[in-house]
């Protein structure tokens, strides 16, 4: 019997969707087979740190309180880091005033049953503020901008689909904004305020993606040197345009089976 690559309900996240759209071979290795990574990729450490700091800052005070921020940075042994302080300062200029402490790192899950295929979308939203009739969701970005409109990013489309029932239940208008917090970025992309037609279209797009995943049997790699060079499976992938040697240690004196 053939092993099942997919269960009855297909999981979908912003990250897995992004992987699928970038390279089906990477999706197979990372999402379906759980192959251990063979190569280094871009380090997410700085982004994770900034997300963590912003959560701490808001849960215990205000991002506009210089003393509080200094305390949070000191608690993380980051007193002298003007780069990290800069991320928080640039966020503070975007943070909605008088919106309370907000919610941070909010986990959402939404199930699609019919029409088939069934899928379960999940995601963690960096921050949600409620103000002026808005459910104002934020996604912090520490890298370079890649879109002029949030609505054009498939990951953002999945996020608003996840958030829509919450906004509807609370009678709020939904908005998703990307905050690009790197020093060299001047403007954020245009926020996304989806209407009912948008949300219906997004559900259909996601359903189409899951149907394509279920129908896929080749999982051909993208074979693009620019993309492959940062792939964490590039030394294993049969379609890689940037093959190398896995970073795994190799035992001395043991040959592979002939």
């Amino acid at each position, binding site marked *: 019997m053939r092993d099942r690559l997919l269960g009855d309900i297909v999981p979908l996240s912003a990250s897995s969707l992004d992987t699928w759209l970038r390279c089906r071979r990477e999706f197979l*290795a990372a999402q*379906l087979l759980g192959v251990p990574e063979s190569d280094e990729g871009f380090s997410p450490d700085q982004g994770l740190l900034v997300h963590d700091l912003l959560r701490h800052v808001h849960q215990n005070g205000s991002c506009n309180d210089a003393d509080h921020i200094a305390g949070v940075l000191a608690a993380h042994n980051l007193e002298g880091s003007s780069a990290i302080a800069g991320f928080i300062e640039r966020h503070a200029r975007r943070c909605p005033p008088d919106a309370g402490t907000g919610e941070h790192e909010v986990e959402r899950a939404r199930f699609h049953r019919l029409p088939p295929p069934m899928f379960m979308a999940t995601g963690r939203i960096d921050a949600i503020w409620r103000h002026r009739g808005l459910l104002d969701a934020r996604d912090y970005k520490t890298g370079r901008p890649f879109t002029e409109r949030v609505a054009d990013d498939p990951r953002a489309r999945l996020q608003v689909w996840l958030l829509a029932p919450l906004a509807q239940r609370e009678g709020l208008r939904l908005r998703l904004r990307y905050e690009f917090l790197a020093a060299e970025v001047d403007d954020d992309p245009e926020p996304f305020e989806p209407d009912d037609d948008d949300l219906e279209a997004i559900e259909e797009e996601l359903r189409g993606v899951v149907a394509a995943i279920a129908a896929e049997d080749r999982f051909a790699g993208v074979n693009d040197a620019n993309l492959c060079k940062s792939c964490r499976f590039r030394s*294993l992938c049969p379609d890689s345009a940037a093959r190398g040697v896995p970073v795994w240690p190799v035992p001395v004196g043991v040959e592979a089976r002939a």
Partner: protein
Amino acid sequence: MAAIEVEAPPRVTPALLRWADTMCPRRLEGLYTDRRGNRPPDARFRVANRVFESARLAHLELAVPSPAAFSAGAGLEPEEQAVYDAAGRWYVALFGDRAVRAVDLDDWESTVEEVGVRLVGPAGLPVEDAAGNLEVRILRVGARRIVTGDPLESIEGRFAVMRAAEWAAGGTLRLCVADLVQGALVERDVDVDDVLAQELQPWLAERVAVIRERAADAAPRPGLECAHCRYVAGCGAHA
């Protein structure tokens, strides 16, 4: 004469032991009571399963393992084949100086009468040497958790000793946890009766008490773990 159906005790897995405090209560209850649910994928385990099976076959007779024992067979993707090959090489490198034979225990579950649960899940490869020394080898293939200094600190290590309790009772068991991608091995000789009485049975009882308490109030708590939940049907969070 009518057959008498005996209800099986609830089911405790390594995942339940690991996430007992934080797992969604409804999902936890489903796993604990072994409720039927939607089918999960199973391809993720096929490399680890084949490595385990190759290691077992390498020790059908009392022998040190050789690279020849590690032939994955058909049906793996090239990426998986590379992982399998690496794991086979590391198995030979880490265990190549020990001649042992594999022992057939129940592959999948054992009952702990004192606590009233079944321990369900893999428990490593049980082997013995010519002198009758017993050993359990937990073979990790690409696990994200690092191999710690004391194998009894890991859930799998504790689980394996409890699964092997009857077989190894009254003696010493060498417990090994090997990462066959990173080439790491930690091991410890365990006085089975002593460790069970002093450490593992109280720990299991405490963990099962937590599981029972949380399963008794099985309200759903939707979040990221819904992606892997087998009990979506009928869940109030996804009605």
